[in-house]
């Protein structure tokens, strides 16, 4: 990811340099801010003493995984919550004492922005113009500006509820900008938004930063977005892990990141590297393994006797590397230990995972079309997924991913074409085919009021497991996913990482041949995501076929093959490396997955208002 935000203006470098006397005034000042929430008799500390400053004319990234405390901090600054202790100053006002003074100068976009879905784009703008006291005579030019900036001009008469996810976010942003705010709080505006719309949102913000000296606080769970900010607050479990310019974060990682290649398969190599001393991070990225070494790791750490032809090529550090390094330590040891225990059982199968190409297809989609009235959601799509393969289905919002997914689950019949899952035709044997499928979504379809044990019991019963077999699977799930200590805790109160493990365990209770994953790790902290994909890799190594739908491109890197869809049609299919290679241009010799994805969509000349 190239740091685009900092290329566009020079202000940030001055701010980061902190030239005395010339520093822009602080827009937000946090002094030891604490806030807890009572839940089921115990207090959860959402924010445990945050001290930080955000400056005018800068984009401050509030970066951290789900549950880090980002939304709580945003609400505290907006005056919607009161801190338990500490002091919050915004634009020179004490927020706890004068919330209205702050709110009069504030633009705030909550996670689900408050658009009125049964009002048109224009009516939403009118409402927020009234609320923000924009004089009628100033509206026409302001609307024109914002519609131009967001590309929503042609849609002013459309109901907000009928806009795509990305367009809704852009409209939400436009509504907060009607009366240019001095402080703009954006709570995860890019979550659930496809990469194309994500890029457009950032362009709007960059445009805003060129024209005003607004202070922007931008929260995100996508670590790659940190690199677009002038300053980053890195939040994890209510603690500020670090703050500073993104370059400061990556600078400390200089010379420690490598791409590793060796014969023997990338999954085996990744598993081996993950348990090598001196390696703090090893993740699959396309055809190679991306490795981050510990500071001062001895050079011999880079030698592996079982991979004699191992080649390490240095690469630029990412923001995520420093996050993993900061979190590292004990927790990483635990993950590595788990990985070791696991690879013993899975080791012989791991290698065969990469050889699975020889096996026949487990999922076959032949010329499938699905129409809803006049609207063609899926248009003549064909693909095959082989046994033990991890196959990714990528696309912007409205590309037809969900419809394809539902047809594969047998929940929706195709208008034309044939679908086969595990050898069963979904038109005639959907129920039998479904029994071979495990499903897990980002939303973790768990019952929050039931305990871990009750959830496992329930899901195993749903999959018709009984008696000794059911008990055996319950014991397996408890051990395999290390859920033992949490068996009697309510699922809704589990930490996110546990929740994710439980959701996966529930999806695997009936030992399915095929696993469907719907954005399984979006918003999850990088260590939990690594652990999750380690398990998925191991499953694939044992012959489980995995189908992933996502527009979180980090996840795409873990796939063996990808299919990019737009407007119901297949744009591109191939390995992550092949898809990235197809987007290679002289000015972009090493495109990221995101750049490749956007290039594929743009090459198909799809209008952004999909």
């Amino acid at each position: 990811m190239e740091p685009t935000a900092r290329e566009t203006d020079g202000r940030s470098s001055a701010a980061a340099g902190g030239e005395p006397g010339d520093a822009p005034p602080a827009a937000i000042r946090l002094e030891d801010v604490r806030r807890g929430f009572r839940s089921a008799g115990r207090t959860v500390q959402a924010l445990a003493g945050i001290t930080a400053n955000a400056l005018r004319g800068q984009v401050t990234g509030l970066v951290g995984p789900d549950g880090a405390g980002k939304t709580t901090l945003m609400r505290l600054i907006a005056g919607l919550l009161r801190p338990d202790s500490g002091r919050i100053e915004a634009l020179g006002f004490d927020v706890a004492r004068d919330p209205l003074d702050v709110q009069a100068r504030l633009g705030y976009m909550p996670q689900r922005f408050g658009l009125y879905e049964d009002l048109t784009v224009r009516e939403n703008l009118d409402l927020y113009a009234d609320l923000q006291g924009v004089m009628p005579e100033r509206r026409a030019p302001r609307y024109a500006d914002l519609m131009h900036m967001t590309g929503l001009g042609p849609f002013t008469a459309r109901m907000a509820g009928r806009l795509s996810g990305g367009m809704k976010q852009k409209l939400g942003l436009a509504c907060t900008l009607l009366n240019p705010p001095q402080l703009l709080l954006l709570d995860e505006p890019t979550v659930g938004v496809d990469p194309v719309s994500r890029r457009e949102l950032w362009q709007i913000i960059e445009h805003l930063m060129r024209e005003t000296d607004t202070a922007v606080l931008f929260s995100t769970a996508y670590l790659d977005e940190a690199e677009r900010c002038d300053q980053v607050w890195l939040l994890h479990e209510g603690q500020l892990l670090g703050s500073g310019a993104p370059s400061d974060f990556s600078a400390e990682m200089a010379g420690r990141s490598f791409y590793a290649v060796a014969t023997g398969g990338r999954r085996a190599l990744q598993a081996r590297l993950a348990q090598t001393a001196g390696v703090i991070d090893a993740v699959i990225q396309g055809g190679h393994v991306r490795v981050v070494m510990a500071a001062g790791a001895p050079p011999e750490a880079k030698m592996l006797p079982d991979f004699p032809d191992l080649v390490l090529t240095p690469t630029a550090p990412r923001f995520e590397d420093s996050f993993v390094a900061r979190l590292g330590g004990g927790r990483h040891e635990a993950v590595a230990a788990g990985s070791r225990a696991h690879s013993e059982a899975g080791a012989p199968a791991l290698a065969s995972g990469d050889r699975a190409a020889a096996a026949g297809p487990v999922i076959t989609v032949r010329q499938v079309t699905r129409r809803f009235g006049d609207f063609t959601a899926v248009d003549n799509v064909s693909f095959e997924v082989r046994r033990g393969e991890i196959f990714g289905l990528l696309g912007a919002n409205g590309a037809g991913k969900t419809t394809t997914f539902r047809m594969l689950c047998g929940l929706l019949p195709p208008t034309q074409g044939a679908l086969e899952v595990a050898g069963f035709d979904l038109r005639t044997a959907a129920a039998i085919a479904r029994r071979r499928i495990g499903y897990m979504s980002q939303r973790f379809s768990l019952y929050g009021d039931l305990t871990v044990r009750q959830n496992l019991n329930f899901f195993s019963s749903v999959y018709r497991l009984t008696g000794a077999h059911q008990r055996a699977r319950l014991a397996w799930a408890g051990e395999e996913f290390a859920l033992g200590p949490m068996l009697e805790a309510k699922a809704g109160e589990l930490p996110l990482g546990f929740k994710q493990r439980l959701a996966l365990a529930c999806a695997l209770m009936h030992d399915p041949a095929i696993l469907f994953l719907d954005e399984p790790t979006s918003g999850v902290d990088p260590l939990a995501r690594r652990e999750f994909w380690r398990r998925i890799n191991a499953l694939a190594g044992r012959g489980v076929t995995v189908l992933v739908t996502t527009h979180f491109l980090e996840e795409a890197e873990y796939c063996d093959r990808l299919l990019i869809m737009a407007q119901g049609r297949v744009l591109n299919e191939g390995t992550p490396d092949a898809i990235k290679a197809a987007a290679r241009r002289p000015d972009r010799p090493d495109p990221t997955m995101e750049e490749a994805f956007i290039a594929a969509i743009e090459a198909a000349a799809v209008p952004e208002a999909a």
Partner: protein
Amino acid sequence: MSPALRRLAGLMRKEFLQIVRDPSALAIAFVLPAVLLLVFGYGVSLDAREVPLALVVQSPDALTDSFTGRFAQSPYFRPSSFRSIQGAQRALAARQVQGIVWLQSDFTRRVERGAGARIGVIVDGVDANTARIIEGYVQQVWAGWLRMRAEERGEAPRMVLDPEARMRFNPQVRSRDYLVPGLIAVIMTLTGALLTALVIAREWERGTMEALMVTRVTVREILLAKLIPYFLLGMGGMAASVLMAVLLFGVPLRGSVLVLAGCAALFMLAALGMGLLISSLTRNQFAAGQVAIVATFLPAFILSGFVFDIRSMPVPIQALTHLIAARYFVSILQSVFLAGNIRSVIVPNALALAVMAAVFLGLAAARARKRLD
């Protein structure tokens, strides 16, 4: 226009657009009242009409004929003659008739002697309400016949007590005439409390409330912007219900429309206040709907005196009805529709409504805060 007024106008315009575009709000305000009125106006009747009645006359003659003839003329009865009391009882058991009037063989002799004429009356008591009504009607017929005979002979009836029931205010004893006005109170509770509680919970659920809170808008403006549109909507539903009551069901409107409108406005404010208060307790549409129905709609239905007479309730329950705003409004409605502007009924009840409206709105305003915790 001042910024505050413009904010209020903007919010209200939004609210009206939502009402117009979301069929559920209009359905609750207009379709539901119409359905309830039709069901209660046509379907539910507390009157007994054309009750099948068995007449057993053991020794028929001119006198008994003149008495049984009164039943044939009455709109309340559909009499049929039986030879024996046993036959009539079988018909009663088979539910072919709902009551038996039995003139024993000494009937004529006793009447002519003028000493203690008697009729036997047996009523199917399964439905206690209908049974009591039939009993009353039979007594009316009996008393009427006795009076007629007395007048024919030019003598004063020798009854110690004149059993003629004088039905004042509702001379035809049409239950529809008092059910329909009472129903208007129930309907307005629904539009006022349920709709308001639901639409505010909807703003929480969709995340729009959080966005509103972080503008310069004040809590008072948010509440007013909900109050005014739903007040107008509720009064619209009320007007439609009154029109339907008068034009379709022919319920008389004896009092003044102005008094009716004024009291309805007070009641509407109380109902809206309850809705706003509920919305400050829960931010979930499902829960808000449940609470609104249990806390406002059901009490208005059961404890307002609209169907069930408050005076026949146990004393503690009677005390409880004083907390139900609909109770006061039902009294006003029944008075304005059936009796006219009775000051002694309207003034105290209207005052009670004003107090309740002030309390609920005050509580709602005090509880509303521009914060999430």
